[in-house]
């Protein structure tokens, strides 16, 4: 089971999460969509494998539903050494702090012991490429590895 966690403000990350989860299911693995605002961070270590998706807001800050997730991770500081995760970020390169949100979240997850799998995927809204396509192309690349880890 792969948990697909997303934090969003205008809904794009949720759409990316849905498409990634669907692709995982179509490939024969199971996936569960989890909005970050509903995620109990003390149970995160037990997830085993997660895909973490967030956008960036303000001046490189976290979107509204990622912020509380981040804050409770930072406060509770669960031991995440049993967690492996892959990261996908949404942003817009016309902002100086392009894609900062996912880097901030990934850094905290690693600090808490989680191990990142693969390179961080990125969607740049300024480029005009379809988000779905970019998200699915990214997960396709890592799915064999994720599938092995999930087994």
């Amino acid at each position: 089971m792969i948990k697909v966690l997303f934090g969003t403000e205008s809904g794009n990350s949720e759409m990316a999460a849905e498409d990634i989860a669907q692709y995982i299911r179509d490939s024969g693995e199971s996936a569960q969509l989890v909005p970050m605002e509903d995620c109990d961070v003390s149970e995160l270590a037990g997830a085993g494998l997660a895909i973490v998706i967030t956008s960036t807001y303000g001046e490189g800050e976290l979107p509204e539903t990622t912020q509380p997730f981040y804050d409770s991770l930072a406060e509770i500081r669960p031991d995440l050494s049993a967690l492996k995760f892959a990261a996908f970020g949404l942003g817009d390169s016309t902002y100086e702090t392009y894609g900062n949100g996912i880097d901030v979240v990934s850094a905290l997850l690693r600090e808490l012991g989680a191990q990142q799998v693969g390179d961080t995927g990125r969607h740049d809204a300024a480029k005009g490429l379809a988000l779905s396509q970019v998200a699915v192309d990214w997960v396709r690349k890592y799915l064999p590895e994720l599938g092995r880890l999930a087994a």
Partner: protein
Amino acid sequence: MVEFQPSIAIIGSGPAGCYTAQFLRKEWPHAEICVFEALPVPYGLLRYGVAADHQGTKAVAAQFDRLFERENVRFAGNVAVGKNLAFEELASNFDIVVLATGLNSDRGLTAEVDPSSRVLGAGSLLKALNGHPEVDLPLLPNGALTPLGERLAVVGNGNVAMDTIRILSKPLHNFQGSDVDDKRLSELRAERVRSIDVFGRSPISNAKFDLSMLKEILHLPSVTIGVTGLTEALEGCQRYQLLSQHESPASDGVSDSRVRVTFHFEADPLCVSKRGDRSLLTVRRSTQDLPSEFEVDTIITATGFENKHCEAATGNVEDWVGKNVFRTGWLSRNGKGTVAENRREAKAVSQAIITQFKAGDLPVCAKGFAAIEKTIEPYVVDFRGWKNIDSHELATANPDRCRRKITDVPKMLSIAAPSKFGQQAKSGNMIRMV
């Protein structure tokens, strides 16, 4: 037993209407949901407000496309409720009605304005540059837009003011990748813009614009910056730090081809009068005892939005009430908030609808779309019709542009559904939108 699912009509296909459709669809996978839109094309101010050179922000449209393409939400375009379909007929045939019609006009100035002076709304200006079919700007006898002139004033300090300043001062060759209406942009900027004076009532610390919007202007190679009205030093306030280095009005460099953009904080417009060919804006400034006068060619107001019902062919939305009628988006928030804020509110409104419906507080068993289908049949453009327009706009884009918008409704109709509307659709079905 299958749970009964209501029939839902959403009026307005802007972000507020579309997000509401999204949340209601999640709750009710089989409910009939229809989004009515006055124009043949969807997405409201996402298409016609959000600046043409901010395509990244417009990308949320991909979420909304999905509703109509995959999730069985119906798009009924070219149907202005109150004109092509009576509100009462709609409201009595759907279990739930959501009004997401936005606001149709710029609020303008509260100060006294001589009607012969040249004052226009930033919303009208940005709509025109976004290719809206209704243009609410002065025209020359030959039908071209009247040039704005060399000296401009912008009243307001929100993000719409920042969009206006950027679009009017950015080099014309720097709109790559946008879908700006090039013809209108070059008509409006036919005379080289030399100065833009920007007036905000608040001190810099309370000015509403986002820092990133200010930075975008500061980074333009084509502007020089000036500032007045910084009454207090604000360490730690980033906008103060960025702007205070430019204190005093930008030098009037006649030889300089750059646009001088001067931000005046704590400056409140008192009145607008006419002086010769120009308009005279009188401003009270906290730093000066006597009012200051600014002589400009055009004054652009970016002071918010409102509904002007006298101008709407669709009647007064304030009269559209009922137990099963809900409101969301700019209509309910008085023209405040970003695209994302409409999502937040749509979620809350959807939750309220679901709760009331489940508690049995709402009428049920209305006939839904089938009951009004005949009434709107002569007008309606479905989602496939919009996709035809969309493909056409993408395919005919000029080099360096992502799209070329069709700017008149009859042409939109003939491309949406040639067999239905023919090649010479009449323009009688246009409502006054701006």
